[in-house]
């Protein structure tokens, strides 16, 4: 055994005991000649395998909560409701960090070879917080509620593809309208929390089968939880109590982490990430994921109903500059479609769009726009650095002769009054586990959250075809064509994919990187423990 490997073993032992944090481990491993990527992966493995300590109170300082939030999982849209629902709720299946399926309330999933009929075997003996036992009927009732337009569910586009739902014994059978090879992944959508009786009587009751019971629910202020004694999975849900504080102010949130008032914070401002990483007792976790920052144009409203105008704006944005200045290098450049290498079946051969003011000017001229200001609405909370990004965009567009002007909007109310309402604004997407789900959620003509109003018959046709296609090569070609349609005709300007950047106190152990979403895909409070 060499000295280096002995040292590495010793370090792994310390990680296992929760005595060494991620930053220290990676720093020392790379000093021994291990690559940073490998060291990160190794840390994740070891950390996951370490013995979890039970008990204590974990406090989260969160961006993304408003006083108008509701506990109805159907309407969850921002980070805090997402995280809250992930704490009291449980889905049929979840996604693992490496892109596999994690069986939650379903024990087994199987399908007919044509991917038209899917069977979910429901776990037996699972209890809801109100004492009721989970049945297949609850699952069907939940899915049915989301199909009702009245429920305003963000998962409507997903459940609409189901023709028939049946509950027999412990088996739920879903017959689809069109074949879908990705159906289990669609069921990992965070709106689809299984509620007793489907939550029809009281969708905002906050009663589910998740690891924690809601104690206090003060939207926009705080949410507190107590461990649910009868939770079915003893391998997660370690702390006794969870407190989520809504701290929308960046400085206050950062200070709260530094001073130990909270143990984990989301949305670290990239501008201070490096500084925060130097604070003793705090580790920064930067996870490349599928999330991206966007400027969205409504394809059906003037002047964005003109593809030359859309193209002019897409060419007038300096992507490299955005990644460097807005993300502080913690991310990668985008190509105006919402898919990157983190997705299966990604086509890397699609040419990268670059900053080209001359071409942009040409397209702008061709669009015949009358020269009136093109208003881009933005709020500081649209994404971290959104206002700066919008100003950079306006500067580069003005350089190309496009009269882009930025209008600042207040943070509170942005998601209900500006996003999906105004024709041109800044926004973000958290990404989805598979391409089909990302496209069905936000780009299919009928999607509720089609926030670019992109309606393209060929695209819809391809989406359906790819969904049921079991030949992976054909499927990849179809996704590639869809990507090109969105890239060249869509209303989304996608300059960058962001890393999820969280700050984690050394008092917390068990953290691992999950590309599926911010804060370990909403599960940090459930899967980590107090060291």
């Amino acid at each position, binding site marked *: 055994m060499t000295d280096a490997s002995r040292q590495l073993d010793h370090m792994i032992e310390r990680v296992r005991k929760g005595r060494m944090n991620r930053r220290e481990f990676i720093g020392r491993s790379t000093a021994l000649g291990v690559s940073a990527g490998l060291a990160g992966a190794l840390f994740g493995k070891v950390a996951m395998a370490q013995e979890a300590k039970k008990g204590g109170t974990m406090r989260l300082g969160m961006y993304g909560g408003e*006083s108008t939030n509701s506990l109805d999982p159907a309407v969850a849209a921002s980070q805090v409701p997402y995280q809250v629902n992930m704490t009291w709720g449980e889905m049929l299946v979840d996604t693992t960090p490496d892109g596999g399926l994690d069986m939650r309330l379903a024990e087994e999933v199987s399908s007919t070879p044509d991917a038209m009929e899917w069977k979910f075997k429901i776990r037996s003996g699972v209890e809801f917080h109100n004492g009721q036992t989970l049945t297949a009927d609850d699952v069907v009732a939940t899915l049915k509620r989301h199909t009702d337009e009245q429920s305003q569910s963000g998962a409507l586009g997903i459940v609409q593809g189901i023709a028939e739902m049946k509950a027999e014994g412990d088996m739920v059978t879903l017959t689809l309208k069109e074949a879908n090879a990705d159906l289990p992944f669609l069921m990992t959508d965070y709106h689809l929390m299984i509620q007793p009786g489907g939550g029809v009587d009281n969708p905002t009751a906050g009663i589910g089968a998740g690891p924690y019971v809601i104690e206090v629910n003060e939207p926009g*202020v705080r949410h507190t939880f107590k461990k649910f004694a009868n939770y079915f999975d003893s391998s997660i849900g370690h702390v006794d109590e969870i407190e989520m504080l809504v701290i*929308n102010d960046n*400085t*206050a949130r950062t200070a709260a982490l530094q001073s130990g008032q909270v143990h984990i914070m989301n949305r670290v401002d990239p501008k201070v990430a490096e500084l925060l990483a130097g604070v003793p007792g705090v580790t920064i976790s930067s996870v490349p994921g599928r999330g991206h920052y966007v400027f969205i144009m409504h394809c059906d409203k003037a002047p964005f109903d003109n593809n030359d105008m859309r193209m002019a704006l897409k060419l007038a944005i300096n992507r490299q500059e955005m990644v460097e200045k807005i993300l502080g290098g913690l991310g990668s450049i985008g190509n105006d479609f919402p898919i990157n290498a983190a997705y299966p079946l990604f086509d890397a051969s699609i040419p990268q769009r670059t900053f080209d003011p001359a071409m942009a000017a040409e397209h702008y001229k061709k669009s015949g726009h009358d020269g009136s200001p093109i208003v881009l609405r933005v709020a500081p909370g649209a994404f971290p650095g959104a206002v700066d990004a919008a100003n950079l965009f306006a500067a580069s567009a003005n350089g190309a002769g496009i009269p882009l002007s930025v209008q600042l909007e207040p943070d509170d*109310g942005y998601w209900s009054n500006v996003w*999906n*309402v105004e024709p041109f604004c800044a926004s973000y997407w958290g990404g989805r586990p598979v391409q089909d789900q990302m496209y069905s959620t936000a780009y299919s003509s009928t999607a509720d959250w089609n926030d670019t109003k992109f309606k393209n018959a060929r695209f819809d046709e391809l989406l359906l075809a790819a969904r049921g296609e079991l030949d992976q090569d054909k499927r990849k070609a179809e996704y590639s064509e869809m990507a090109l349609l969105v890239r060249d005709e869509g209303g989304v300007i996608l300059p960058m994919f962001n890393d999820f950047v969280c700050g984690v106190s050394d008092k917390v152990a068990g953290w691992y990187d999950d590309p599926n979403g911010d804060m370990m895909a909403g599960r940090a409070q459930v899967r980590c423990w107090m060291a």
Partner: protein
Amino acid sequence: MLDGLKGPPVHPVLKLLVQRLALGLLLLLAVSAVIFLGVEALPGDTAQAILGQSATPQALENLRNQLGLNEPALTRYFAWLGGVLTGDLGISLTNGSDIATAIGQRLGNTLFLAGCAAAIAVPLAILLGLVAARYAGRWPDKVISGATLTTISLPEFVAAYFVIYLLTQVIPIFQPVAMVFPGMSFWAKLNAIALPVIVLVLVVLAHMMRMTRAAILNVMQSAYIETAELKGLSPMTMIWRHAFPNAIAPVVSVVMLNLAYLVVGVVVVEVVFSYNALGQYLVDHVTKRDLPVVQAVGLIFAAVYILLNMLADIIGILANPRLRHPK
């Protein structure tokens, strides 16, 4: 026989008080009308704002009927006013919660913060003002004036970030997030709001201090102060016993203005410290066009403002013998 209708002679001060009170109520009524009109004049439609872009015409019509938006404005105003008088502030449009309940807790938090800040700021400002007047033009005066003018010149959020940095990072004795909840002990609450209190004290100190100093210096020119001086009283006794009582009226009116600010104007401080009080609640709902909430909070803020100004007037009258005994 007209004399028989007369009651016992009314004390002029009592009469004045009743007059002021009636005037205040009348003013409040006028303010309620102005608030209602202002909210009415906002562009856009409440039903549309609630339902968003996906609203169908039928749904809009249903909601308008349900909210009574199709009634004439006058009818709605009196319905609202009637509700307010009976303690019913209506239902929040955005999340359907009872406004009175929601406001109750947050108003408590607002008053708690304002009260704590005032309990420190008012005596401190007056004391500093007295000291500054005693040593007018000399170094204690210059130090006090310089320091307080510096703190009032800082925007609140800068002062807030500064104290967060100083007192949670450099000397970690307080918490940056100042949320208070029912069930916390009184001391825990005090500890939680320490930083916003410090910021608010810094912000309001200068105004009250300067007014105290100016009012006292003004009185110090009077002949009776000269008499006191000739009697050989010490400068501090002179100020405290003779000058200050005669300078009270202007000081009180500035103190009341600052108290009103502490209650209605501290939304920036609330946001920076994530303090769950009325200002943030109001701003949240303004952006959502939750009009019943905006009206209710607006009315409460107006009432606080009117009440405190009325109090300043009354104290001013009571403190002034010439107003107390009108000829």
